[in-house]
């Protein structure tokens, strides 16, 4: 039995207290230690990613499987059950990559309670690795909830002026959503309970065996849990608050990692476990995804705060994930799910870079208000260059692979319903507001005598960590799409 996935989960969890002690003892040493630990996790996840790519598991199968009994009790048992496939391996890769970049960026942007901060980052990372690898519903739920706790503290302790409100709103929304999700899991479990059979919470055991009649309520329950995380309009109202108040590195984790939990949950659980009910109501989800895409794009146009604008871009981009996933269910066109997985990957990097950048801009210019940021081309030329590149990535401009992801999703949407072609307008609006923002901030003239506060070259190099993979992946897109293919064909079902 492999133990690689346990390493992914437990290296961060073990590192968390060590990082705390190290950073208390010596700030600089602690941060170096954090970066080293994060890079170690990244290397392990890269190994997993490569393993899944080089021999993708068959549809419905998983690689690096670990299974052992965790709790056993008559009439109730739980397995510690981990595994990866082409859906989870890109998410593991991007989560661990973003953790490295976030720690690197935090050294300048976070200046209070550092030991606690870096320890919580690792608690968060360990829990996220657990969410993306768990193949047991209760284990999944446990990790899912652990994610909340560090995020609550990140927003509440290190956040902006309205941080307390945002933190409470975040935890109440997401906790309410996830308890309803748990209800759905219990409903499935008890519904599968027949005399003489050993019921199970294991996803591979349940998948394909849940009777259609048992799928509707849990689909609704899991929908609520995941829609809050994704977030889907109208469950999204916590997100702009959380993003605006969270410190920039944490916004990167929120957008790049936490929102992916929602998309992952839709694919792995809503579609994976409840395929018939999902297929029956696929048009509803498709429509909701489309509404989210348009709502996010249009609301972003109206924002004055750069960070809030990026936050709405997240809603817009995550709408693509849902749209693509359910387009495949309707049309059978596998590009939808492949595109959704790809979109989660590219969104994490593109929007992650912008959030991190917004933190630097706030740090350097003292404001994030778009109308007040003038003449960045002269006051902070390097920052402006990165902003233009990041915006290009976020609006889906080739050669950034976000283009490919959105393209695939839209193609699948059109093959589902011709009318879905209006989704092509979303990237247009997105491009519109990003270009308008660039015009106002970068290309305008500075007022008064410009003072130059710019990124150091080291920080610019860190942004390469976000943007280079995006460029590389438009050429080597098969790295993600090949392992995603069996997942997509499995989720589509035989139809």
């Amino acid at each position: 039995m492999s133990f690689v996935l346990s390493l992914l989960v437990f290296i961060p969890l073990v590192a968390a207290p060590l990082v705390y002690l190290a950073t208390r003892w010596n700030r600089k040493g602690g941060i170096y230690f954090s970066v080293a630990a994060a890079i170690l996790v990244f290397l392990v996840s890269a190994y997993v990613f490569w393993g899944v790519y080089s021999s993708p598991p068959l549809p419905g199968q998983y690689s690096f499987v670990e299974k052992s009994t965790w709790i056993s009790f008559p009439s109730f048992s739980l397995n510690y059950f981990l595994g990866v496939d082409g859906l989870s391996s890109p998410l593991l890769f991007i989560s661990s990559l973003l953790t490295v970049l976030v720690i690197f960026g935090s050294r300048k942007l976070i200046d209070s309670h550092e030991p606690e901060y870096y320890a919580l980052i690792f608690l968060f990372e360990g829990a996220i690795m657990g969410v993306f690898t768990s193949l047991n519903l209760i284990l999944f739920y446990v990790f899912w909830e652990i994610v909340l706790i560090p995020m609550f503290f990140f927003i509440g302790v290190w956040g902006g002026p309205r941080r307390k409100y945002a933190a409470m709103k975040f935890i109440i929304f997401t906790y309410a959503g996830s308890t309803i999700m748990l209800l759905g899991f219990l409903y499935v479990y008890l519904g599968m309970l027949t005399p003489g059979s050993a019921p199970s919470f294991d996803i591979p055991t349940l998948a394909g065996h849940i009777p259609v009649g048992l799928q509707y309520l849990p689909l609704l329950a899991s929908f609520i849990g995941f829609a809050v995380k994704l977030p889907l309009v109208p469950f999204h109202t916590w997100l702009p608050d959380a993003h605006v108040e969270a410190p920039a590195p944490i916004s990167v984790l929120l957008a790049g990692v936490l929102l992916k939990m929602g998309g992952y949950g839709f694919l792995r659980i809503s579609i994976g476990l409840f395929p018939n009910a999902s297929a029956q109501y696929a048009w509803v989800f498709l429509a909701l995804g489309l509404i989210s895409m348009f709502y996010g794009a249009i609301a972003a146009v109206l924002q004055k705060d750069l960070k809030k604008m990026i936050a709405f871009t997240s809603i817009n981009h995550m709408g693509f994930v849902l749209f693509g996933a359910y387009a495949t269910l309707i049309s059978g066109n596998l590009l939808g799910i492949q595109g959704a997985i790809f979109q989660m990957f590219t969104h994490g990097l593109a929007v992650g870079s912008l959030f991190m950048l917004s933190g630097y801009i706030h740090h350097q210019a003292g404001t994030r208000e778009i109308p007040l940021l003038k003449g960045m081309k002269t006051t902070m030329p390097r920052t402006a260059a990165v902003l233009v590149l990041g915006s290009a990535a976020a609006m889906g401009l080739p050669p950034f692979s976000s283009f490919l992801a959105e393209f695939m999703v839209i193609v699948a949407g059109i093959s589902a319903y011709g009318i879905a072609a209006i989704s092509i307008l979303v990237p247009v609006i997105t491009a519109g507001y990003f270009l308008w923002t660039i015009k106002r901030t970068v290309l305008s003239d500075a007022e008064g005598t410009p003072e130059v506060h710019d990124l150091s070259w080291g920080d610019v190099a860190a942004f390469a960590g976000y943007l280079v993979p995006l460029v590389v992946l438009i050429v080597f897109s098969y790295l993600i799409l090949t392992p995603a293919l069996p997942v997509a064909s499995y989720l589509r079902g035989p139809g």
Partner: protein
Amino acid sequence: MVDLLTAATALLGATALLLPLLQLRKGGKQATAGYVLAAVLGAVMGLVGWFTLHPTPVPWFGSLLSDDQLGGVFALVTIGVTLMVTIASFTYQKGPNTPVYYSLLSFTALGMLLLSYSQNLLMLFVAWELMSLPTYVLAGFDKKLRSNEASVKYAIIGAMSSAIILYAISLAYGLTGSVQISDVVSGFRAQPTALAGVATLLFVAGFGFKMSIVPFHMWIPDAYEGAPTTITTVLAAATKKAGFVAAIRVLLALTTLYVVTQNPYFTLPNILAVLALLTMTVGNVSALTQRSMTRLLAYSSIAQAGYILIGFVPFSLAPASGAAALGMTGSILHVINHAVMKGVAFLCAALVLMQLKRADLGAYNGLAKRMPVTAFTMAIALFALAGVPPLSGFWSKLLLFLSVANGPYGWLAVAGILNSAFSLGYYAWIVKRMYADDPDSSERVKEPFWFVVVFAVAVGLIIGIGLFPQGAINFAAGAVPQAP
């Protein structure tokens, strides 16, 4: 091997009787009483623990007491909480009557120990009184107006509940000619008369006062707030649990209500389910509006009693079913977990009250900067109370909700889960105050060594049971009473 239990009883009794002699010594020497009691309680825990792990079915004191694992679990929990409180009291309890304070605690511990093992209604009643009477005095130990008010209120309600229990016992004796619990049960089953139904309801009410079940809960917030907070810890985490063991032993055996009234709705499972729902909901909703930490924890304690009661429902419905075993395991596990979580939360409140002289929620603003260990412990305890995984409270709640989710009481599981989600609102609110809000002054406050020791052990238990629940689940499952 039963001698171990006899030894434990004798040890506690002797300590209780001899400790007041330390009053004769002058000055700081009186604190010795606390160390003595802690050592004795530790020894008793060792004896009971050894016995529970290596049980031998030998009759004990005739048939007044039984030596089963159910008794063992509750004895360990109640003695454990008393030990926690004793250790915390080293620094909390100062003043001239310190040895008497510890002596009374010792009497309470003895009462709870005997109550856990009682198999006879009269033995149960005597133990009940031995447990309760010292706590009436302890609740008023501060000699402040509030504390005395709490004490009087608590004593009056306590006397009333004792009277109700006694009346129920007298009915049971009159109907069956015995005070042995097993005889009463078989007698009630053989002849389910209307009076037997009345006796059952009286037992519900009498135990309900200690268990803080709505509508017998009104004394809880006042008494918990007025009593010295260490004593509140005993009330919330220990004597309340003793109420539950009495209820498990007596109530669950009595399923005669339906037979008596022939009314399909007026059955014991239905009554327990409604009480559980009311208790959870009233507790959580009231906790949300509190402005004082002790009152908030008191209402949260009421809500937790509601969760524990959920496990009684499947057991009273069909005692031999798998759901009943699951539910009762969940109840017993939640008793264990709640004793740790709520016990340590009250001790945190006690420390804050002692050091900052404030109990309002404002005192908790920015506590993480002033008392980091206390704030961390409190945060862990509160998240565990809310049932956030992977802390211990999650598992017992999961078992409880699972046990009722399939069957006629599915709505109770839904209500329980929604209540949990709702309760995070006020628990997280406290955590927010401690970590996100700014304190009045940023001066570090001393956190006494003995409190830190207790906090560390409790946090270890909460996280340990959370990550590796199998051992605790087995322990609780072994204590589930056999179906009659």
